[in-house]
């Protein structure tokens, strides 16, 4: 698919529809039909990411409702993935697929075995399981396929041993490897882990124990930044991932009750902080302003395949001295890291929180930097500061290809803005409400 036509010609809804459909196209292109596993990126030989599979499973219902895929095909794709995970090697061996109901972060797309010595990932398993439960809530017909979807989804969720992932501690660990056991990292500060904790608290079989959720939220930082009160997390994606599945509008846990806010409003404030940071542009990167902002996790120019300057990590900026480029990194505001790379897909995924800011920003980015759209999809990251001049025209460095996480959250957040489909499905999930209540949430639809 070529790049989009000039965005000025499209009304907002048509523009969103084009971007959403193109983003969904990633999952059509990147799936292995036999295993249902979906590639992490569009690059050659990319392995599957279990989180991307979670997003894929959540986008199939969107595609059915939008008429981009038949229900039968969506159910078949879903069933392929669920069958693969249900039958996968759960021995926890170095070449297995998972352990204790969790899965290794990256898997071979064809065989489903662990690759890159990746870790058994708690958050990525949670994203996968959220997709599994979304599918279960959508495929409610009494056909054999849809019945099997529901049965397998229940099996996969119930066998996740969330309690084991606490490793006897107060909070859930981030990962585990057969070679060295649990990784050192814990969850510190606000992050996308609300979804993880809600699923872990809602489990009828292996729920987390103790005041695990409170122990995590006690690491939060409530800050006044640029005159906005915000639960701090630097990158945009942190303010989005849980919201792709959970309708947190008006819901408050103990922390948010004390602050008289909620996580949805907080994500809106995070948009304002991001925009204000770009307006101030403290490190004087090219392109930043109120219509061009958005720091998040994504790829940057350092050592990126296809970069015009592979291997170049530094630039000397006037008055600033050496400036460092990053590769794939979680960029954030206002403390950084910031190397001038913006993530247009992360901006678009903030659509439900601040549509009046997001749509004009996406339009501006696409107009100023048409190279950020390939195959109709927004790139993971682009960097005008690291650009080059071709035929007297300044072009930004653009991350080649696409990442499944970016495309998945774009499909879901546009849909939540348009029809609330993903939120409605998960509101009906029998495990979500108990999980939210277990975390102390009240109010809103709950």
């Amino acid at each position, binding site marked *: 698919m070529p790049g989009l036509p000039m965005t000025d010609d499209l009304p907002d809804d048509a523009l969103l529809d084009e971007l959403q459909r193109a983003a969904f196209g990633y999952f059509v292109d990147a799936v292995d039909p036999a295993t249902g596993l979906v590639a992490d990126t569009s690059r050659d030989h990319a392995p599957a990411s279990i989180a991307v599979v979670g997003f894929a499973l959540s986008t199939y219902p969107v595609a059915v409702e939008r008429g981009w895929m038949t229900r039968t095909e969506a159910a078949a794709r879903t069933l392929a993935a669920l069958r693969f995970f249900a039958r996968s090697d759960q021995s926890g061996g170095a070449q297995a697929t998972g352990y204790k109901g969790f899965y290794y972060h990256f898997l071979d797309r064809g065989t489903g075995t662990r690759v890159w010595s990746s870790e058994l990932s708690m958050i990525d398993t949670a994203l996968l399981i959220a997709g599994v439960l979304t599918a279960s809530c959508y495929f409610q017909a009494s056909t054999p396929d849809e019945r099997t979807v529901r049965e397998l989804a229940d099996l996969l969720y119930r066998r996740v041993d969330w309690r084991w992932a606490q490793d006897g501690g107060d909070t859930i660990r981030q990962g585990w490897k057969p070679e*060295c056991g649990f990784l050192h990292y814990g969850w510190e500060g606000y992050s996308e882990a609300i979804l993880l904790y809600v699923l872990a608290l809602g489990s009828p079989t292996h729920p987390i124990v103790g005041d695990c959720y409170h122990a995590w939220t006690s*690491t939060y930082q409530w800050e*006044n930044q640029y005159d906005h009160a915000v639960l701090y997390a630097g990158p945009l994606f942190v303010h989005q991932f849980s919201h792709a599945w959970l309708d947190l509008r008006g819901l408050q846990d103990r922390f948010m009750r004390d602050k008289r806010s909620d996580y949805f409003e907080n994500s809106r404030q995070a948009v304002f902080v991001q925009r204000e940071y770009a307006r101030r542009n403290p490190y004087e990167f090219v392109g930043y302003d109120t219509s061009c902002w958005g720091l998040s996790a994504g790829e940057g120019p350092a050592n990126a395949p296809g970069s015009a300057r592979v291997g170049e990590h530094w630039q000397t900026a006037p008055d600033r001295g050496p400036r460092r480029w990053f590769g794939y990194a979680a960029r954030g505001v206002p403390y950084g890291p910031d190397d001038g790379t913006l993530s247009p897909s992360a901006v678009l995924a903030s659509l439900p929180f601040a549509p009046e800011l997001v749509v004009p920003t996406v339009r501006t980015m696409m107009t100023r930097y048409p190279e950020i759209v390939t195959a109709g999809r927004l790139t993971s990251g682009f960097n005008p500061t690291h650009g080059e001049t071709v035929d007297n025209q300044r072009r930004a460095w653009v991350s080649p290809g696409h990442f499944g996480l970016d495309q998945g959250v774009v499909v879901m957040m546009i849909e939540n803005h348009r029809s609330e489909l993903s939120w409605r499905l998960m509101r009906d999930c029998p495990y979500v409400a108990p999980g939210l209540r277990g975390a102390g949430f009240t109010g809103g639809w709950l």
Partner: protein
Amino acid sequence: MIEDASERERAANVRPPAWTNPEPAERYHLVIVGGGPAGLAAAHAAAARGAKVALIERARLGGTDLNVGTVPSKAIIQSSRVFAEMRDAVRYGVPDPAEVELDFAGIMARMRRLRARISRDAGAARLAAAGVDVFFGDASFVAGDAIAVAGATLGFRKAMIATGSRPHLPPIPGLVDATFLTNETVFELTALPERLLVIGGGPLGCELAQAFHRLGARTTIVQDLPLFLPKEERDAAQILSNALARDGLEVRLNTTVTRVRVERGETLVDLISDDYHSTITVDAILNGVGRRPNVEGLNLGAAEVDHDPVAGIHVDDLLRTTNRRIYAAGDVCVEHKFTHVAEATGRMVVRNALFLGRERLSELVVPWCTFTDPEIAHVGASVREAHDRDIPVTTYVIPLHEVTRAIVDGHDLGFVKIHVRDGTDRILGATIVARHAGEMIGEITAAIMAGVGLRTLAHVIHASPVQTGAIQLAAQAFCRTQLTPTLKQRLRRWLAR
């Protein structure tokens, strides 16, 4: 040991070669064991108030701080900053100073000269002039109210143990067999190691790793935790990680040294990060992992003073040991092993032990600073500690890129964060990351001590432009939050009357 005029002057001050211990008094109001910052502060404070004081020092007066700690390290850090700034001069419009060559011997000689100069204040002669009986030798308690030193027995009404701490050697196979440096030996270097490994990402490790790297040693720093400075807030630690990487240090977080080997004259260090094994070759290893209290050899059992090798002397909130006649101060008993804490607790013991004071350790407002570039300073409660005590807290943040002086100085990496109890303007604590954070934290410390809130700080006039202006900006951000819609409406009505 280096022998030069500076070292001879320092020795003459802190351990005079011809010193003769005085004839002991019949009984002392206060006997102090240890002549580091805590002991010296207590000795001067007690003597100034008329107490009969004896001070016993095993090695050199001035302790770690003067001889192998704060003083020499900050001298080297300053040299490394100047060297780094010379190479960075072009950023300020100053022509690149061509052919800048490092004079490592000159840097170390400067350090020794400054150390000798500062040692005059810690000298035995000055103590004696203040009326303190100074004894050199190993101290050993012989009873609950008496202590022996160099053949003499000193009776006391009260005693204070301030024997400090020493570097803690991590149990790494092969480390002891290889040549390694600690803060007690690194200042004896005569040549800059080409490749340096620093073990430990605490304050000491980070400071010296950055300084030696800036001086030209290719430095790798290994920290077993995912972030540096585990006692600091994670954003501060993250900025430090980025700053060290910017300087070109090889940063190995979440990494443990598993073994040190010497093969064919080369020092090889095996590392592991999760399941990733690697080996690096270095010319020197600096151990910057933790400290252990000096509690050995004091015959503490004879005085019934409880202690253990990790926490040191056990004290209550008034710094009393399990023997009510005996107190402790400084590194040997407190968690925060800093010079300024040692001095503060030393003076506290004088007031509590001799003058019926009831000053409590838990009520001390203790700032601290890691002297990297940027510096990281902290005072009071962290957000985590406030949450643990169920205190609702909001943090007012001013990134330094908003501060005029930081921008014009070219030092705008960092922030001021002030933690305030919700519903009040009461400052609970603060973290500052800035070129001179150690200087800036003093204003917040004074405000906390005096019970001054953010509302008042917003009206404190600062000279302009200064980096402490960031504190006022944070206070003003707080004041803007007090302009509720109702208040704004009333103000509008008043203006429209």
